[in-house]
């Protein structure tokens, strides 16, 4: 299987990409005693995977397809292009609409900032890790791109396909929340891992849906086809958490 080692590198929470400072909304809930137990965490993840997870997976999958198309274009045109090494011209035109799509689906300014901060951190790692691939390098032209776009472009550079990149997005959403819950609530890590395994079929269903949507959106060149599913409490608490003075996690 090509790209598996690169994919595993991007799935590793030890990769220096700043993910460890985000709790996926868990800290704000724990602070308010709205999330207190393992069953609460499972309920939280269940809803997050189907809403925020679907949106993140679709955007990541889009970015994987867009980045792969950049390579296809530079090969097909057989002309000096962004794939020809670090000195090639950088095309950013294809990314703006998708970056905007994430912006308009993230009404919380705190969550937009968290996404751009994480995107920038991963982009630094990805441009060094895969300097010859046009995906991450062209995204750098946006300045601080959103995290799902960077994750998708980096996964394409690593050789992963749209489905694998969507799975990666859901994996990080679940991992950040589960890891934070273990630290903040002192939950048994073994039982948390078992709960995550129990949610794997749901993750797979959401990934399949996300890839279908992303494929149609890229084929039509239409960001409006992307999902914008959201729930009330996470978006509201993200803003309240951002305004709080003492936080362990940035989001």
């Amino acid at each position: 299987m090509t790209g598996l080692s690169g994919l595993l590198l991007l799935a590793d929470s030890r990769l220096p990409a700043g993910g460890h400072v985000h709790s996926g909304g868990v800290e704000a809930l724990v602070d308010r005693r709205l999330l207190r137990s393992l069953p609460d965490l499972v309920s939280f993840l269940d809803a997050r995977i189907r809403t925020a997870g679907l949106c993140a997976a679709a955007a990541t999958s889009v970015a994987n397809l867009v980045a792969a198309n950049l390579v296809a274009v530079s090969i097909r045109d057989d002309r000096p292009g962004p794939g020809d090494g670090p000195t090639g011209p950088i095309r950013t035109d294809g990314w703006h609409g998708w970056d905007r799509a994430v912006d308009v689906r993230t009404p919380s300014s705190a969550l937009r900032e968290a996404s751009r901060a994480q995107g920038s951190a991963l982009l630094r790692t990805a441009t060094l890790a895969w300097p010859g691939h046009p995906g991450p390098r062209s995204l750098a032209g946006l300045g601080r791109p959103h995290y799902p776009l960077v994750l998708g472009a980096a996964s394409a550079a690593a050789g992963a396909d749209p489905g694998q990149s969507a799975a990666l997005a859901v994996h990080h959403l679940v991992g950040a929340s589960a890891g934070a819950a273990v630290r903040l609530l002192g939950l048994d890590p073994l039982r948390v891992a078992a709960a995550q395994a129990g949610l794997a079929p749901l993750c797979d269903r959401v990934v399949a849906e996300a890839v279908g949507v992303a494929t149609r959106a890229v084929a039509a060149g239409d960001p409006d086809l992307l999902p914008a599913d959201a729930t009330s409490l996470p978006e509201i608490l993200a803003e309240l958490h951002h305004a709080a003075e003492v936080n362990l996690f940035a989001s």
Partner: protein
Amino acid sequence: MKACAEVEVEAGRRIRWSAAPPVVLRRTGPTRVHLVAAAGGPLGGDRLELRIRLAEDTELTIGSAGATVAQPGRPGSGPACWMVAAELAVGARLRWAPQPTVVCDRAELHAIVRVTLAERASVLVREEVLLGRYGQLGGRYRGTLSVDRVGVPLLRHTTVLDGADPALCGPAGTGGASAVGSLLVAGPGWCARGGGDRTSERREPGEKPDSGELPGVRWAVSELAGGGATLLLAVGESPRVAELLDGAGSSTGLDSGRH
């Protein structure tokens, strides 16, 4: 049932409308119309639509005479769809502030509000959704708010609720609350603010809007990407959410209260 009603404010400020039962309009002021319920529902399978057009520099407020109560249709009838599409020309101002939508047990409602703004156009969209009638958990709801400003997307937001889905009523959903509300304010010179008179002292216009929490309600106000627009989201118990939206709307300088 399938129905499409229209309302238009022409350049001379004349209001023209066509009713399509059960979507029926009544004029209630020089720049105001109300939706009046001409039937129960919407029921599963209904496809109801309201198209709104505002000419240059015109103004319109749309309220509703009663709550919208989404009920289940016959088995297999699918969701009820309620679509509101508004096109605002340069400098036009629209206030969309209907009474709450109640989603009954086993009902499924897809509500879409789509607003297109030209230069200097302003819109206020106030929405309140209650899960279930008394003693009910509530049905399924997807509420999409989609706003474009001068050809550029400003907001795509779909609120997902399901009173019978424990996860969507849990810590990543409504946290057990039965009401959600939102107040979108976009356009020159408007800003939304949480709390109103109840929680905070009067502030100068243009100051950063508030987010906060009180017994029975939590809310956040965010400036949208691109600027010039804010979205207030609230979750809690029904009277508290309504009070919050009323207070926030009044501090925009425009009355968002229900008429």
